[in-house]
Each structure stands twice: as structure tokens, then as C-alpha cells.
């Protein structure tokens, strides 16, 4: 299980090792976009952007579809799900930890209120 997860994430995170590619994913998270529009947005040549999109496509993070002369890019579900699951896992670990922290802080607050009452007497 762990090994399988690891292998898949390695591919995804290879694709994510570049700031532009991460930016492209963020952008596509908001709306689908053509390669031309992405190139403009990230101040790159069309060829440069095609390469980045190609890497994301191979990792399953992005899918593209050519309609007429425009190639539209959108987020690929497979890669995105794995990425989301990976970060969700990390999030849940911390969430459980913070739930315990809440209890400790609640106790400290209660103790302060009790101590405060004692001092006021």
C-alpha cells in the first residue's frame, strides 16, 4: 500500500517540482485554459508552455483537448485525486493533533478562570 502510493506520488511530484507547472495547475484549478493563454499568463513562449503542459499530461495531472486550432488544458482527475489524497492525509494527521491541542487549551482556560476567581476572593 505504502509503496504503491509512493510510486504514484513520485511521478506526480516530479511534475510538481517546477514553480511554473504548479502555477499552471493552480490556474487550471480556477478555469480551463488554452496553451496560448497559459503561455501569456506565465510570460513564456508557446513552445516552453507546451513542454510544461506535456510533463503535467504525462503525470496525469492535466488533460488536453484540441478543438479547431485551440488546445484546451484542464486538470486531470487521476493525478489530482492522488495529490489531494496525499495532502488530505497530512491534513488529517494534523487535524487530529490540533483536536487534542484544543482540549489542552480548554483546560488551561478553565484553570485560569478558576484561579482568577480564587485570586479575586
Amino acid at each position: 500500500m505504502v509503496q504503491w502510493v509512493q510510486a504514484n506520488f513520485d511521478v506526480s511530484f516530479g511534475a510538481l517540482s517546477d514553480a511554473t507547472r504548479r502555477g499552471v495547475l493552480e490556474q487550471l484549478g480556477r478555469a480551463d485554459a488554452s496553451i496560448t493563454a497559459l503561455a501569456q499568463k506565465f510570460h513564456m513562449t508557446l513552445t516552453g508552455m507546451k513542454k510544461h503542459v506535456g510533463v503535467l499530461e504525462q503525470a496525469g495531472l492535466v488533460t488536453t483537448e484540441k478543438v479547431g486550432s485551440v488546445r484546451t488544458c484542464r486538470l486531470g482527475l487521476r493525478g489530482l485525486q492522488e495529490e489531494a489524497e496525499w495532502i488530505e492525509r497530512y491534513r488529517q494527521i494534523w487535524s487530529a493533533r490540533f483536536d487534542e491541542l484544543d482540549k489542552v487549551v480548554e483546560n488551561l482556560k478553565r484553570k485560569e478562570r478558576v484561579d482568577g476567581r480564587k485570586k479575586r476572593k
Partner: protein
Amino acid sequence: MDERRESEAAPTKNHTSAERRSERELVVTRTVNGPARLVFEAWTKADLFRQWWVPRSYGLTLLSCEMDVRVGGGYRLAFRHQDSTMEFFGTYLEVTPHSRLVWTNEEGDGGVTVTTVTFDDIAGRTSVAVHDLYPSKEAADAAGGSTGAMPEALGQLDELLVSLRSTTPTP
């Protein structure tokens, strides 16, 4: 008045968010319902820290927790996981009461991880941000399923997540 408040149902848990900010960085944020003064105390006093750092459901036993919270001071946590013992240790690089803590994790083979925790008090509630800078992309990747390079615990964490999913509605 206090009695009334204490008898109320437990407050709704705040949302925890997690983000991979770069290939080596993971950031977790959460608001805690208490002033930074108390939240900071819970992060810096060993007898309090040990009550929450390892949630009971992890299946790990915290054997010892030593924390010398001052710049240059060290910490050491020892856990038992099934038959093995794990140790986590490092050094505090920055200690700014109620607002900022920075420490290193030095137990990993692949280099040092630096954890920066900031506490931002907003009208009696505290926004906590935990920023982990890993020595490599691989180390950060591995952290996704563990708590700071704890591969042995992965199996148990899987179980934890399954139990969490079965008891809480998926957002």
C-alpha cells in the same frame, strides 16, 4: 455563568488546512480557541505538549518527552511503536514567547528538517501556522503519510484515517 458555559456542548472544531507550498515545504494552519499566551504554553511545556502531540488514536506510546525550550536548547521525544522504539530530537533555533518557535528535526538520515511555528493572537483566538522545511523533496514526499518522517507509523496512520473517515462526514 461559567457553569453555564462549561455545560455547553463542545465547540465546533476549527478547520485544519494543509498545503504543499513547494517541493520541500509543507504548511499547516489552524485556529485555536484560546489566547496565544496559552497556546504557546501548550507548545512549550513538556507536561502539556505530551498530552496532545501524539493523538491517542495513533497507537503510539510516548515514553518520554524532554524539552529545554530556549535558543540552543534541545528536545527529545521517545515513542514505542509495537516492538520498536523511535526517538525524535533536535534543537530550538528561535523562541519568541507567544509568537514564534523554530526547531530542527535531526533524527532523519536525509538531513535536517526545520519547523517554524507562528502564533497570531486575534481577539483571544490564535491562528497557528506550522511550516516544515524538509531537507529534500523526497523527505517532504514521505512526510505526507507520516508525522515528520515516521515511516514505521504509516500502517497505524492508515488505520487512523480509516477510522476518521468512518466517523466523520467527508467534507
